[in-house]
Structures are given as C-alpha cells and as structure tokens.
C-alpha cells in the first residue's frame, strides 16, 4: 500500500524489538468477542488510477455550476477565485500543519490568522474578530449563545429575514442548550415589528443584512432600541462581499456579527467546508467563542503571534468553556485572507460593484416579464421575484434546459404555501450578458 512505509522485514524487526511474536499480541487488551479475524466486506486496496476513475465517475454525474448559467445564491455564492489562492493554500506547510499550539514553529499560520482577524474586523466595521468558526449558521448560533451569556437572558428574537438554515441551527441549539427562540415568519416584503417584540428576557435580536430575500435595510435606528431594552443586536451577513458596497453592521450599531465568508476565496463545495466569520466589540472579547490570535514578543523581544485568551476555551476550561469548538476552518480562512489581500480596497469595492451591476441588469430584465414582480426595494447581488405560478416546477423545467435559475423558496419553506411562487435569484460577476439573455428568454418561454 503506497501510503505505508513499513516493509514486512521492518515489521518483523520491530516486533522483535518489542519482544512479541505477532501483531495480535499488541491487541491483547481487546476482548476476544470483539476482535475481527477477517476483513470487513469492503473493496480491497486500489491504485491511484482506479480511485480516480471511481470517484471521477461520481463527480461527472453532477451538473457543475460553471458549465451552465447559474443564478443560485441563498448563502453560497459562485465567485471567481484567482489561481494564486488555491496554489498557495496547497503549500504543504499550510495544508498539513495542525492547530498552532507550538507558536515558535507555527508563526506562518498564526500571522495569517492575525491578518484574517484584522480583515474581518475592518470589513464588518467591528473592533475584534476571531480566527473562524465552522460556517455562518453555526456562527449565528454561537452569537446567540454569547448574547445569552453577556446579558444573562435567555430569549433570542430571530428576524424572518434570517436564512432558514441559520434559524433551524439556532432552534436546534436552543432546544438542547436551553434557551428560547422567537422566530418570525419569513416576510419577503418586510414590515416586521421587531422592536415591539423585545421583552425583559430578550438577550438579542438577530437580523440579516442583506436579508435572505436580498433586501438591504438600515438598522442604525434599531440598534439603540435594542440597547435601551438591554438586548444586543446580532447582524448576520451571508454574502460577505456585500460589505464592499454597503454600510457595514459595525456602523449600524451591531454588537455581534456572524457571517459566512465563503464568497471570498472559497468554492461552493456543495455546501461545505465553508467559513464562519465572527466579530464583536472589544468589551465582549472574553465571552467570544473560538480561537483568537494575539500579538506578543519572543524571548529576544521580536514581534510574534500566539493563540491567546485560551482560558475561554475547552482545552483549558473544560465544562466552563465559552464554546466546545476546537477545530475551526483554518484553511478556508487562509483562502479568504489571500483572496482579500489580492483584492485589496480597490479590488473589493470594484468586485462588489460588478456584482451589484450584474444584479441590477438582471432585475431590470426579469421584472419586465409579464406577471413577474420584483419584491425588493434595495438589493446587492440577490433579489426575490414573485412569479405568476408555483416556482419549483419552473426551476426544474429551467434546469432541464440547462439554466440554474435560482432557489424556489418552497424548497426551504415547504410549509408556507404563500411563498410557493417566490423565486430567489442571484447574479455575481460570473454572470455574463449571454447568461442574462438566456434566463430572460427561457423564463419567458416556461411561463408562457
């Protein structure tokens, strides 16, 4: 087997050095009735070529997003990733290192995480960010639990504009961790009265911006209302690129930002691995979940980086930790850091503008189709349309014509018939004029 360096003579020599006759002697502590004598009913070892054939055959049965016009977003966005990103993250020194517990020989990982934390703080307009969590949905649940700890309250109000997967993750955590969630109904056209719901036990209000239906809102007048009632404002961002164009949550008074960072540097990957971003205020840092990298000096007084404030974490604090998280999304954070370093201020702003331009052009075309209504007032690169008939079969019909037209809201909200005719459509810089023509034409045809 090509990954195993020991030869049979090596094994014999090693057994002799140990002083046993056979490998079985080393498994003597395993109860007899639990020992497998033979091989399990699974295929035998395969060469690289055979594995590549078998797995490539599975890949080829999927419709790759890049092979067709794609208008699907909903918390995962297809953007262009410069070749440099994937090249650099595959350097073995990044790819095959562990969590940086030994700082003297992990300065590479620690320094890029410090740069990552800075980038995330700048982008969200917050003071401090951690070194990543699993994804946006888990970051959202962690944000609610952090708000519960900070306020010593136990009820979170979730806007109906929150991504339904994020809401569902919060509901699962709520049931088992022991807090309440008041989730509002999805409202593509807005009109929620969140302020009126805040009570004495409300730890936080969770809003998403742009919301799940693509609508951009200003929360700067809502934040003080939360604060006056002793609650925190958690702002979720599922399309982090939007912050290259719109006012960041930090400027709107957010206390915690939980976001999905996949859009920068990371592929769609059928939903994972993605990249949880988590940012907050300096005064709350000791209640933050996840790893934090801090600046310090070494024995010679030279600047360096270490994992810090570890007394929040499970490996030190055990049952009193702020979170049970250990492994996070380090390599996805590296991809984000490299891509954003390449973009810089100029590139990020221009890329965001390209996305908005594509979405505006698409909206202008689609809202002219008879019976189609745009539900948004303001949007970034994604918006909701009301079609004159149920969306799911329309999307299926378009997929058969080779156009991935968007997300039927009914897939995420099967129990809400009122939303069955709502379609969520995204357009990034990857969308061409031909793609827009194609969707316009095919959608007209399917609807006619």
């Amino acid at each position, binding site marked *: 087997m090509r990954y195993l360096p020991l030869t049979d003579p090596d094994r014999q020599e090693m057994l002799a050095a140990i002083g046993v006759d056979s490998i079985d002697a080393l498994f003597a502590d*395993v109860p007899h009735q639990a020992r497998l004598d033979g091989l399990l009913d699974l295929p035998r070892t395969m060469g690289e070529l055979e594995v590549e054939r078998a797995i490539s055959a599975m890949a080829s049965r*999927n419709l790759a*997003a890049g092979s067709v016009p794609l208008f699907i977003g909903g918390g*995962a966005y297809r953007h262009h990733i410069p070749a440099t990103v994937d090249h650099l993250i595959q350097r073995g020194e990044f790819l095959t290192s*562990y969590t940086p517990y030994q700082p003297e020989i992990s300065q590479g990982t620690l320094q890029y995480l410090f740069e990552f934390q800075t980038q995330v703080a700048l982008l969200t307009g917050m003071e401090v960010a951690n070194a990543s969590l699993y994804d946006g949905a888990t970051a959202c649940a962690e944000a609610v639990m952090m708000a519960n700890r900070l306020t010593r309250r136990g009820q979170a109000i979730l806007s109906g504009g929150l991504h339904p997967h994020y809401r569902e993750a919060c509901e699962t955590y709520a049931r088992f961790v022991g807090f309440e969630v008041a989730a509002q109904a999805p409202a593509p056209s807005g009109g929620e009265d969140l302020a009126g719901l805040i009570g004495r036990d409300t730890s936080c209000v969770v809003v998403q911006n742009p919301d799940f239906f693509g609508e951009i809102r200003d929360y700067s007048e809502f934040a003080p209302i939360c604060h006056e009632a002793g609650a925190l404002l958690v702002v979720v961002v599922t399309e982090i690129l939007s912050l290259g164009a719109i006012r960041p949550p930090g400027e709107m008074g957010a206390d915690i930002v939980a976001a999905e960072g996949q859009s920068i540097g990371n592929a769609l990957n059928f939903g994972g691995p993605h990249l949880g971003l988590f940012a907050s205020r300096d005064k709350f840092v000791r209640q933050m979940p996840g790893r934090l990298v801090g600046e310090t000096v070494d024995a010679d007084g030279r600047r360096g980086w270490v994992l810090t404030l570890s007394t929040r974490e499970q490996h030190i604090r055990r049952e009193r930790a702020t979170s049970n998280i250990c492994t996070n999304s380090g390599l996805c954070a590296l991809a984000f850091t490299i891509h954003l370093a*390449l973009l810089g201020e100029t*590139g990020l702003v221009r890329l965001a503008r390209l996305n908005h331009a594509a979405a505006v052009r698409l909206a202008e075309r689609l809202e002219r189709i008879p019976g189609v209504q745009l539900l948004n007032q303001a949007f970034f690169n994604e918006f909701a349309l009301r079609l004159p008939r149920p969306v799911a079969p329309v999307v299926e019909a378009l997929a058969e014509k080779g156009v991935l037209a968007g997300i039927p809201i009914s897939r995420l909200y099967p129990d809400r018939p009122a939303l069955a005719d709502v379609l969520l459509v995204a357009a990034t810089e990857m969308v061409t004029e031909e793609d827009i023509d194609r969707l316009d034409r095919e959608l007209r045809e399917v609807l006619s």
Partner: protein
Amino acid sequence: MTDWSRAVSTRPPADLAAPLETVTGNRGLQIEEGLIFEQGSPGRCGVDFADPPPFEARLGGLERQGAIGLPGLSEPQVVRHFTRLSQKNYAIDTGLYPLGSCTMKHNPRLNEKLARLPGFADVHPLQPVSTVPGALALIDTLAHWLKTLTGMPAVALSPGAGAHGELCGIMTIRAALEARGERRSRVLVPESAHGTNPATAAACGYTIDPVPGNPRGRVDLEVLQRKLGSDVAALMLTNPNTCGLFENEILDIAAAVHAAGAFFYCDGANFNAIVGRVRPADLGIDCMHLNLHKTFSTPHGGGGPGSGPVALAASLAPYAPLPWVVHGEDRLELAEHKVGPTEQAIGRLKGFHGQMGMFVRALAYMMSHGADGLRQVAEDAVLSANYLRARLDGDLSLSFAGPCMHEVLFDDRFLKDTGVTTLDFAKALVDEGYHPMTMYFPLVVHGALLIEPTETESKASLDQFTAVLKALVAAARSGDGARFHAAPRLTPRRRLDETAAARQPILRWRPESAHLQAVE
C-alpha cells in the same frame, strides 16, 4: 570535473563561529516578513477587473461611506508574502508530527485533486436535487464505508468537526431520553477525556461527573458502577483512551451503562488504532464521532476545516440531524425537512449538507486503502507506537504497563532533579527539527508527553526520532539544563510571551496612530 570539496569549507574559522547579526534580521532561508497591512499602497490591486458599464445603483442609499482600510498589493507581493509565511510552519510534509491524539498522518494529494473536481467543488448546495445524483452517491458510499467500519446502522454526516460531532451525539442521546419521557441530569466523563467532552455535555445542560482512572490507566469500573444511576444520561469515553490504552473492561462498562438506562458515547478521536480490527458496535457503543481529519487523513489545514460524522446505534438513528440522504424508489433523495421518517430528527446543526470537500477526500483515502489497507493502518500505527515504547523505555518514564495502542504516554519522572520541565524538553525537540509530542495532556499523569507516530513513518524515521530523544534525555541528565531552558533557539521566533499576550490583548493590526488612541 570540479572538485568542490577543495573550494567549500563547511567549518567557519573560529572568530566567525558566533551567531551572525544580519542587517535584515533574516537568517538565510528564514526571512522576516511584516504584515500585509504594512506593505500595501492605496490603489494597488492584485486582481484586474474592468469597471461595469454605467448603471443606476439600487442600494437604497446605504452605500458604504469612507475607506475600509484594506491594503493594496500586487500578485507577486501576495505570493511572496504567503510563501514566506508558509516557511515559518512545521508540517507533516516536512517531518514527523508526533502529537498524541491528533493523528497527524500523511495527507495524500490524490484526495486534494479529487475534492477539486468541478463535479464536487463547483456544485451549489441548493441546485435542484435532480442535478446532483453523484454528490448524493458519494455521501451514500462514504456512509456505507463508515457504517461497515463501525458496525453501526446509521451515520450522521453534517457535523463540521469532532467537537460538533460530540454535540450532535449528546443531542441525539438527549432526544432519545426525552422520547422515553426521561430527563436525566448527569454525564460521566473520565478525567483523561479531551476538554471538548465536558464542554459539550455542559453545553447541552448536563452536569459533568468526572470518573477517576485506576492505576492501570483505565476507567475504574467499580467507581463507574457506583456513579451510575437513573439520573445519568451517558458515559463519554474515549477508546482507546488518551493514555494510549484500550479499555479492556469495555464490555462490562457498556453493560453497566446500559443496565442503568444510559447511553454509551465514544469519542472516536483515536479510531486510528482499531480501524478494520475492531468495530465499535461490537464494544457496546451507541454513538461515536469520527474525525475525518484524523483517521481518514483529510488535512488538518492549520486548524480545520474538519468533519465529524457520528455513527449511531438503531436506538439513536431516528434523531440524526438533517439533512439525510435516503434511498428513494429509484434514486437517492435528500431529506431536508422533518416529515415522515425524519419526524424525530433533532433538526439542523449547520448550513447545507455537511463538509462535502472532506467527504470526497475521506472516501478517496478509504478506497485507496481498502478493507485490507485500513486494517494494516491500525496495525502499523499500533506497531510503531509500541516500537517507540520499547525503544524509549528506561530513557523516558512510561506511565503505564502493558502494550499501548497507537500512542504512548510518558510522564516527567525521567526529568526529576534535572531542572528541566516537560515544556523545556519539548522545546529542545523543536531545535532538533521535530514538532513536539502532546504535552501536559492527559491530565492524569504529571508532565505528560503523549507520542503518536502514526502508520506513515518509516522505520528509519522512528529510529532517528528515538535516537534524538535518547540524546536529549542524556543531555538533560548530564546537567545541560541551559540548553533546554533557552530552547528553541533555531526557530523563526524563540519562546513567545503568552502571559503578556493575554494581559493586554492585541487581536488585530491598527495603524500606529489608532494604536496609541486605543491604548489611551
């Protein structure tokens, strides 16, 4: 032919033997590298995009005002920066990485290549299910391998890493208890457990009741039996445990746990020791997470992403989190909501469908090995750890008797009266070009040194490692304490002041002027 040996001397004259102070602070290939924020210039950009044609923005007047503060760098600057950073990292690609309980084994590049196929990497999670049969087939095949290897009837695939898998497992246990109408309050956790175990159970509202070990490094069965009762929800046991030992009374432990009506959770971080040789189901385990980034070799990436599928007994399977891949009449389906067979699911733990990129890598790894190769993995891992154990016995102090599994635990008695601590010893190993073993964990012995070589080291590599450890032990015992206290000296940075870092945390870069304001 040129005789270079005449031209090049490797030994400097005596007056040049002292450490060289360089103008740059660089030391040959070790190059000092500032932050990207210190290198950028406004207006420079490493990506070329044309501006869009003129259009009317529809941002509702919420345009960002003012600069974000991101630095501008060109592509060559970015490539050089991150390449230099990479050279400051130790990695399994560069050497033995004996971190106990972390299973730092070789990461095959085939797996990277396959995970990047557009048919996996460039597939949107919310594409119509009819366009992703291959993705569902891959998930289903991975599940089949994991179920066969564990002997368990179901596997929940969505958890994002090991600790997330633990959360998933404890949640399903609580859901099963609630379905029985029971509210139990305690979870038993051995003192040698990973910190994530008590943190997870506490997060789910349980009181942690620690179980001491016996002198043989295993769970004390008698104490465990006394602690079990009708208010105990689960035992969370790591097997092999973090002392590197197989819990030889595990069948009795399982029987006792089940007799008390509790569930038996196993932390599968150490599955590498038994894969293909022992099925956890045959040990009476009800629930076990698997770290795909340990046993199944998906790269650890400097701290993730991981993937933590959870194998479940039939009694827990109905509560597995969404989504499920289910066998429909003529094709695989994705069950994303609580309807019909998924009615009792605990709900969603994460966005979308799990760590697909990790699933591809892990399946490629398992198929490459096959049933025979995976069994060999466990055998070689255990053989290598026992070989180190035998070679180092008498130099380092073994904590427990008997053969070990895939990792071997020493404590710091061998350093007694040397003035050298476990930390000093580990840092001296860094100067020798090795990543240290896991230190000060598990907490059940003093000054622990936990060594896990894995199956992907050659005998020559193991021999060299033992020779280095023996030499260091001899140095420590001969009174050369200074070498250890000053270590490491040959690394990009020497020991870092962690206390100062925690006392006044600097968690991001700020421009010099802003920095002063923040301090005030």
